[in-house]
């Protein structure tokens, strides 16, 4: 009998075993399993492994934006005490990071330089101090070339990118005609700047080769299974010769989905030196050489008829990327199904620039797409004199407006209604600029949130040992998302074990292949794999008990059936194990699957300085089953705070002369700090999604950011009457329109 329980989601799973478990831990707000290690500094991140004979690497980036390196002058630094060598490999080093989930090598080759800061060499030394000293002083000779560094100057030269998770162009009906025939319409253009994920842990890799030519990379990566393949292909070695270890990852938010230049530089250098090499990016290098979220320019059109019904939706976006890198920021991904309207045009075009790679950052697509669409919708409602919540009620689609398939679940209107009720939305004065609190102009804003749900192939092993303890193992990661805890809760619920009787081992490619963390698919995908493994274990336990699985009760380490109670340990002999494996199937096409939510924000805008403060914030979300109410809430807090940053402060500035990031550090690229964030409230609606996966849970890590920035902008408008269409909403964009002091 095979030891693997596989499921392809070709059919709904109407009854989830998680609803009939007896342990009662699923969904509960339990503390994180690994919490005590994290709060005591005992959790080991990738740069922290104590490896004997380690050489320190310092990455050397270019100080020009386009051209050719003619010489890396190793001799210029060899005399510095402690310096071992300078390694470069113009063919193998990574020009760009890879996108998430790809199974090919990223773009390699660094002699031709395509963006400012590209990593062209690594200096190796006995100490970090010596490596840094040499890395800063090393002479890199080059010939500079003309480049395209200015979005504004090149935005008329667009190309149509290849399809991503959505096609670049989509058309249904005739938006132009809908606009011409409309009783009311808006046609507005919003812009968002480049952004950086700014995970607190910089990208770091330690590369260790063994005598058999196998590489172990301690690397801060979100998707080790595909990262391993990317790394193997980049180095020209077999997949099975590479192992990535990443049990703790200091945040990713998309920036660590695919391998980044430090991994290959460390591996090449370690091979050449014949000793382990550690390469940690400096904070500016993280900004300059990993990945950014593209800037966008988005034209949004909505048209309504005389009854206030949406008749047309247009969402046309320009994003930027390096030539040959097909990824485009899919701003329209939510637009496709969020809004009704028969006439639709959703296009994405690329402006090729010599700026660093653009790729995924938390909720690629919705995060900045909804900052435009939900703000434009607010403009439309203002023009119509209709409350946005009433507008949604009237225009809520009953099925996917393009694919004409049902939604698996859709509680958007309920999110809006419940949020309105608890936030006190009815107290909002719809006329802007009416409410004052001393020197502060007060306003409220609302926005919808949608985030496409995804399921990825993922596997996990679950074992029960002779002592009746369970161990879950998988190449899944926990990047702060709560994987350790929720996977333990799923196994504990299904096997009848308290959480402390379940060990969870993650972040190692020697364990069963997994989806990794990205796109909010982690919990649904890896959780389903654990579910399937446990389902098989329950069958084995039932067989050992001589009963039907349906009549078996598992609780507190005991198996109970037919008036008999036996401890798990005594039922499993030397131990049993099973592998669970989930894969997406027809349900992806049969049902539109998404998580939904609503954001409510109250801001104060200082009437004198234009400073915007978020005073209150509420998010109401529906995302299928909530697996752990505590960690799920934290995910939403995180997403919503990203929304504050996107709306008010985050703005990665490219020097139009050479593409250099003017603000390449945390002092100048402003992520929200504690004082920028109020005591945010988060509510979840009860929901199960039987079409999504057997655990009935959907993604939540990115829902909180989707739409959030628009709610803030809408609140600023309500406070002041000023509509800023160029995010972030900084004081300079408000000052000259504020009322006289």
């Amino acid at each position: 009998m095979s030891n693997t329980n596989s499921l392809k989601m070709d059919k709904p799973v109407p009854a989830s075993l998680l609803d009939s478990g007896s342990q009662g831990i699923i969904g509960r707000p339990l503390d994180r399993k690994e919490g005590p290690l994290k709060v005591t500094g005992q959790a080991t991140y990738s740069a922290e492994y104590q490896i004997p004979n380690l050489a320190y690497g310092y990455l050397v980036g270019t100080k020009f934006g386009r051209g050719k390196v003619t010489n890396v002058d190793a001799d210029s630094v060899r005399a510095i005490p402690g310096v071992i060598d300078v390694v470069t490999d113009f063919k193998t080093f990574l020009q760009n990071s890879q996108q998430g989930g790809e199974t090919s090598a990223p773009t390699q080759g660094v002699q031709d330089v395509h963006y400012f800061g590209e990593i062209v060499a690594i200096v190796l030394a006995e100490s970090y101090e010596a490596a840094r000293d040499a890395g800063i002083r090393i002479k890199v000779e080059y010939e500079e070339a003309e480049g395209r560094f200015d979005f504004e100057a090149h935005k008329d030269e667009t190309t149509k990118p290849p399809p991503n998770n959505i096609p670049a162009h989509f058309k249904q009906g005739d938006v132009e005609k809908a606009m011409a025939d409309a009783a009311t319409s808006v046609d507005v253009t919003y812009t968002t700047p480049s952004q950086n994920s700014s995970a607190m842990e910089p990208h770091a890799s330690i590369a260790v080769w063994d005598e058999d030519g196998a590489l172990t990379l301690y690397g801060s990566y979100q998707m080790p299974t595909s990262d391993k393949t990317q790394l193997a292909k980049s180095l020209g070695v077999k997949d099975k010769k590479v192992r990535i270890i990443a049990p703790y990852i200091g945040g990713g938010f998309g920036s660590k989905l695919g391998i980044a230049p430090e991994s290959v530089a460390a591996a090449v250098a370690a091979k050449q030196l014949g000793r382990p090499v550690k390469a940690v990016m400096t904070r500016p290098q993280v900004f300059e050489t990993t990945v950014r979220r593209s800037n966008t320019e988005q034209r949004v059109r909505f048209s309504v008829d005389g009854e206030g019904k949406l008749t047309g939706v247009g969402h046309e976006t320009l994003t930027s990327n390096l030539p040959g890198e097909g990824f485009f920021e899919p701003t329209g991904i939510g637009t496709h199904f969020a809004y009704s309207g028969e006439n639709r045009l959703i296009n994405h075009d690329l402006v090729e620039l010599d700026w660093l790679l653009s790729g995924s950052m938390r909720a690629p697509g919705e995060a900045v797409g909804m900052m435009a669409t939900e703000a434009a919708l607010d403009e439309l409602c203002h023009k119509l004199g209709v409350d946005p919540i009433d507008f949604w009620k009237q225009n809520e689609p009953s099925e996917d407006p393009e694919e004409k398939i049902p939604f698996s679940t859709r509680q958007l209107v309920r999110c809006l209604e419940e949020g309105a009720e608890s936030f006190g939305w009815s107290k909002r004065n719809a006329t802007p600029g009416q409410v004052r609190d001393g020197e502060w102009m007060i306003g409220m804003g609302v926005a919808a949130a949608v985030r496409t749900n995804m399921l990825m192939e993922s596997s996990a092993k679950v074992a029960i040992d002779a002592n009746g303890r369970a161990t879950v193992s998988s190449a899944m990661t926990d990047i702060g998302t709560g994987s350790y805890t929720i996977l333990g809760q799923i196994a504990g619920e299904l096997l009848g074990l308290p959480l402390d009787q379940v060990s969870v081992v993650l972040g190692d490619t020697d364990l069963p292949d997994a989806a990794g963390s990205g796109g909010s698919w982690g919990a649904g995908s890896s959780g389903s794999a654990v579910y399937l493994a446990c389902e098989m274990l329950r069958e084995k336990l039932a067989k050992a008990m001589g009963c039907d699985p349906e009549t078996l009760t598992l609780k507190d380490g005991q198996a109970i059936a037919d008036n008999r109670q036996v401890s798990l340990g005594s039922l499993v002999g030397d131990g049993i194990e099973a592998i669970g494996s989930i894969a997406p199937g027809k349900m992806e096409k049969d049902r539109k699957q998404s998580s939904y939510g609503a954001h409510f924000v109250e801001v104060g805008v200082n009437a004198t300085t234009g400073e915007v403060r978020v005073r209150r914030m509420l998010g109401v979300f529906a995302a299928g089953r909530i697996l752990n109410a505590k960690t799920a809430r934290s995910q939403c807090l995180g997403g919503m705070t990203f929304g504050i940053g996107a709306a008010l402060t985050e703005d990665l500035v490219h020097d139009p002369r050479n593409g250099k990031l003017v603000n390449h550090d945390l002092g100048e690229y402003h992520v929200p700090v504690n004082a920028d964030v109020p005591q945010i409230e988060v509510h979840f609606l009860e929901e199960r999604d039987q079409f999504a996966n057997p655990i009935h849970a959907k993604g939540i890590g990115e829902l909180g950011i989707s739409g959030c920035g628009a709610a803030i902008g809408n609140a600023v408008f309500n406070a002041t009457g000023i509509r800023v269409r160029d995010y972030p909403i900084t004081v300079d964009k408000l000052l000259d329109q504020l009322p006289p002091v």
Partner: protein
Amino acid sequence: MHFTINGTAYTAEPDIRTSLLDLLREHLGLTGSKKGCDHGQCGACTVLVNGRRINSCLSLAVMHQDDEITTIEGLGTPEDLHPLQAAFVKHDGYQCGYCTPGQICSAVGMLDEVKKGWPSHVSETLGDVEFNDGEISERMSGNLCRCAAYPNIVDAIRDVAEAKA
């Protein structure tokens, strides 16, 4: 040179270029203190030197002859958590955990500053500082958390401060 770190005497000959943070992480194997920026911009490297919180990346090791340094490893262990560490677990005052040692060391130092009556930017008066959520947020704003556990960090610190009071 001599230092006392978490109550243990250390002797070291640090390179004059070595920051206190690199001394801890790279030379002494105390990797609980984190490096997020190496620029004094994130607070991940916060430790206590003679009871006061500092960004250890901005301080050279050679400046700390005979100093008493407390890092996250010195506050508690997984089996015996410091009250702030326990409160961070209870309130989920972290996600990825990378900023967390710095947050907790910073909170220890911050609560002591409040006890001494030091005002902050948001204090209404220079004396008799009233302790509230706004004070916590303001005083903890040198510690970035991109996971954005801020509301939970405030809850955790408030809990401990109230229990003490």
